[in-house]
């Protein structure tokens, strides 16, 4: 599915300093029943965001008007558990374009890259720095430059470089996806299939 190109993102950020946030929290299974990719943002972090009567829980950060923006900053091992791409869709649909953490689960990272959400892995120290700066001033902006592979905290000028493989970077910069690529090599795939033993 096509998504917006990603070049430079400058935005305030939403802090979620919890470790091991799994995709069941990002979007609980009971909201996976759609057959189209619409409306998942409404149920992002559903059970942390709303109580059982569907009233917003005041102490959850997405219900705090002080913290808004297109960047979500999470604790270590973000996105573990279920492979549901719906988790990445929910994050995108809610309006985030970038998730920052000191460590990402594999499948979640892949899913993000496939749908146009940039996972930015930073050092634990830099992550602390981001959290502290945001808590001091919620209006703190982060600047994420995909081309240069640098994330910067504008408030204090601290920055760090991050990794992304060249191919995925090209895709994100141009808004391409893997199927475009694979469609161009269909003939060699068919040739290969003839030779596989299974």
């Amino acid at each position: 599915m096509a998504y917006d190109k990603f070049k430079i993102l400058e935005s305030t950020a939403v802090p979620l300093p919890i470790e091991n946030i799994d995709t069941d929290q990002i979007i609980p299974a009971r909201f996976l029943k759609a057959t189209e990719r619409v409306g998942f943002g409404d149920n992002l972090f559903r059970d942390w965001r709303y109580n059982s009567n569907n009233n917003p829980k005041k102490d959850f950060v997405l219900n705090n008007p002080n913290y808004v923006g297109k960047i979500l900053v999470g604790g270590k091992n973000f996105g573990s558990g279920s492979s549901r791409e719906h988790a990445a869709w929910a994050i995108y649909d809610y309006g985030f374009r970038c998730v920052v953490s000191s460590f990402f689960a594999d499948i979640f990272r892949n899913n993000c890259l496939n749908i146009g959400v940039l996972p930015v892995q930073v050092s634990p120290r830099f992550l602390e720095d981001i959290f502290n700066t945001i808590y001091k001033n919620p209006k703190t902006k982060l600047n994420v430059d995909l081309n240069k592979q640098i994330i910067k905290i504008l408030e204090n000028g601290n920055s760090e470089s991050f990794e992304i493989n060249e191919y995925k970077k090209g895709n994100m910069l141009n808004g391409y996806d893997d199927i475009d690529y694979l469609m161009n090599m269909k003939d060699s795939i068919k040739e290969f299939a003839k030779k596989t033993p299974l």
Partner: protein
Amino acid sequence: MSKTLFDKVWDSHVIHRIKNGPDVLFIDRHMVHEVTSPVAFLGLKNRNISVLFPEKTFATADHNTPTKNQHLPVKDPLSANQLKALEENSKLHGISYWGLGHEKNGIVHVVGPEYGITQPGATIVCGDSHTSTHGAFGAIAFGIGTSEVEMVLSAQCIMQPKAKRMRITIDGKLSKGVTPKDVALFIISKLTTSGATGYFVEYAGNVFTEMSMEGRMTVCNLSIEMGARGGMIAPDQKTFEYIKDREFTPKGDDWSKAMKYWSTLKSDEDALFDKELVFDGNKIQPMITYGTNPGMGMSISNGIPSAESQDGGIKTYLKSLEYMNYNEGESMLGKKIDFVFLGSCTNGRIEDFRAFTEIVKGKKKAANVTAWLVPGSHKVEKAIREEGLLKILEEAGFELREPGCSACLAMNDDKIPAGKYAVSTSNRNFEGRQGPGSRTLLASPLVAAAAALTGTVTDPRTLY
């Protein structure tokens, strides 16, 4: 150059290597279910492309199917809609479809091996993280996202960088009451839920070679819970005997040819792994989890570890105990249980029902416990009846439900109510995984059986 088992299978499936990018990996077998496939099929429609190799994809309905009255129309309109979409998409693209009520229906990772779709040396993917189960046969098997499901449907390939290699070796003799599930929960408790992220794991050592195929599936199934891309075990005589004469495995000359290839599927003696871990099988005890991720597990008779003894964040750890309403240092033995769930692709196979039955035979289910016994497939269900297990279970006060994922992820009606405790043989104890507010203790079928009899966390070794 020496290669690991993982290298051998992966490298032989790479069609193209992108510099500073992923490998284009050919996929031999693709399994789909109703939840993670509709948007992928929709993508095909929008791009106006068809499925490249429909004979390499297999569809089954499992995630949101009811486990009672499967002959009746599915009540929940959203679930019914997803099931209908899978049926229609399968028909449209010529994919075999094992829907609700079909004799081959069941949980995707249970039916794959049952019908020989799962084979050594194959690359197998599915939009479900526990696809790692199929690694028990020496296949490279892992879960993918919906965008990748669309890739496999349209081009029979995915694009991923090759994972690093890890080997986990466990030798020794497992003591009484210690099952493959305990071995897996033990490993995860040592590695944490992120300890194997970025790796593909090979399990080695006599503990695994002596395990049944069902046990190996349980272990490989849980690989994902320590963050690994997948796990695998080199195929051996036991593997070949298991798959021989199954519907989709090669026959006659093809079998002999395949055997030649399969017998090369092991890590070379001097192959190098990026990481090697060794544990002592003699020391593993029956395990139970006490927190909200599968890494928070311990020997059933230990006390809940203190926050300070953890290397993770103390705040997150305490938040987790608070959710469970447990305290540091407490013993898990004797804790009250409300529900017991025997099932899922981790422990929903015939061997698991045999183990459960062995404990409850001649005894009675505790009155305050609700027990959901859900076979992983119709084939398992049939075996439970034919082996006489059903009779024993019913005499002990249990009833058998119909196959599906059920309370593993609670997309159907099988939801653990808020605040209630469930001992579950499934794979995830995340907050709300088994229903909003539910509290899950992961354990083996033996521990589940003991809890069902006593209504508390009980060491099964005291019951037989």
